[in-house]
């Protein structure tokens, strides 16, 4: 009697109809999943970011600056982390007469999927010992995009010795996303339609004196944001989409 209990129990018999139904549903789901996967034809053509970004425009000109910029991933200034996340990354400084240099960083990913998206700068700054304050949405009025405005973000990053004002926008496909949920939903709906959107982070920042007053900071923001728009206007129609999306 007891011995029977110790043996491995025999597999219980199941309802054949139900087993068959589960099998049909599973195979259907596997088929649907592979059909709905966007193929490579859903991707945008590759670009060479270095060449697309102008070195001189309006009153601005690129300068070789000794300033070290904030890395584009939370992993810090490690090339492998940047390379694993983005297809291209460019960091430059620009100067114009009568003002501190503005640091500019671009991070471009040709295919934005649910995993491996652009990192938001607030995380990169705080990972590397900066305190991030005043993260806020803002909007730039411009006729460069059909919508008439670009959604951007502003933040203040500071350490003991350094106060940095940051403005950025993240374009994914044809939207300017201000949060991760927004990005995810957009990527999801584009993907289900067979498209793989590309994405770019366009970040500008400048170091301002620690004792800057609010109105000084407002002026600095306006200056670097105008520079963002000036840069886009200076680019030819054929490459502008990289920064502001298809028009």
């Amino acid at each position, binding site marked *: 009697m*007891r011995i029977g209990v110790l043996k491995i129990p025999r597999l219980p018999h199941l309802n054949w109809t139900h087993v068959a139904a589960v099998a049909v549903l599973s195979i259907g789901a596997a088929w649907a999943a592979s059909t709905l996967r966007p193929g490579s034809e859903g991707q945008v053509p590759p670009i060479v970011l270095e060449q697309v970004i102008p070195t001189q425009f309006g009153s601005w000109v690129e300068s070789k600056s000794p300033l070290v910029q904030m890395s584009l991933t939370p992993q810090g200034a490690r090339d492998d982390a940047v390379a694993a996340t983005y297809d291209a990354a460019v960091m430059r400084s620009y100067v114009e007469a009568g003002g501190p240099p503005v640091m500019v960083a671009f991070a471009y990913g040709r295919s934005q999927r649910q995993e491996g998206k652009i990192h938001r700068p607030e995380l990169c700054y705080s990972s590397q010992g900066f305190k991030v304050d005043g993260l806020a949405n803002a909007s730039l009025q411009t006729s460069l995009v059909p919508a008439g405005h670009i959604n951007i973000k502003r933040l203040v990053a500071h350490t003991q010795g350094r106060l940095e004002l940051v403005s950025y926008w993240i374009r994914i496909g044809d939207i300017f996303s201000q949060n991760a949920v927004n990005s995810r939903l957009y990527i999801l709906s584009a993907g289900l339609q067979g498209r793989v959107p590309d994405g770019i982070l366009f970040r500008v920042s400048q170091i301002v004196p620690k004792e800057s007053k609010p109105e000084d900071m407002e002026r600095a923001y306006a200056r670097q944001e105008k520079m963002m728009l000036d840069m886009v206007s200076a680019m030819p129609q054929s490459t502008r989409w990289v920064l502001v999306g298809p028009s």
Partner: protein
Amino acid sequence: MADTSHGRLGSSAAGAPSSGSALQWGALLACIAVLYMPTFHALANGLWSTDQNSHGPIVLGVAAWFFYFKSRQLAAAGELLPAPAPAAGFVFVLIGLVLYVIGRSQDFHLFEMGALLPFIAGLVLIFFGWNTLRRLWFAFFFLFFAIPLPGAIVDVLTHPMKILVSWGSEHLLWNLGYPISRSGVILTIGQYQLLVADACAGLNSLFTLEALGMLYLNLMRHESAFRNIVLAILIVPISLTANLVRVVVLALVTYYFGDEAGQGFVHGFSGMVLFMTALLLIISMDGLLRKVSKAYRG
């Protein structure tokens, strides 16, 4: 009693060959394989090969083993009494499959792996019913830890832990007289710079440890709810401590033997240090709690 329940389990009590049921179970396993082989293949080449998610296959394997272990235990105790609830079961299966299709086709691992929960729960309901599902709750709970959370959530939750672990390591080593300084999550010891990466203070390692801790509790079958709950909560500081030990060991290896040795340690051995430390802490905490609860009772 044992004899009759055994009779219920087999396809026939007389011991007729049950190749039919073997075929059925094989078919169900094949369904899971058809759905998840591509997923596991993709994960093995992607997410699971990163430091952040290397615990994925371990947790998944343990979850699978636990399903097997628990259902065998139920069957052996004669408590696997089929009372199928196919209607509810198919609803669960369908929910699971819809999540799966979205997740699989859009590389959304949260949905893709998350779909396993309703899908398997649905199968249990279809063939065995609510009671058995309830008996297996812990296996589902464990499976939950195998679901990779979206990067943004992980980043937000991990960040304070990284800061805490970096801060703790800095203070410990400073007080031991090492030349160490910290900026955010970057430690500078001597001439070397260490970045306390996600893997070193990860939510994922916390999750894995929490999962393994819960498994330990479940297998130990503690009677006292007090001990279970306290230990489950203690796993959070234990995990942080274990991570701190790992970072400190890494810093010391780098300091004495150089960057290369440090990197070798990171890739080869530091995970082991983490889990050994955590396991030791869990077991000794458990022993301590046993003494405490005994002392109060006696």
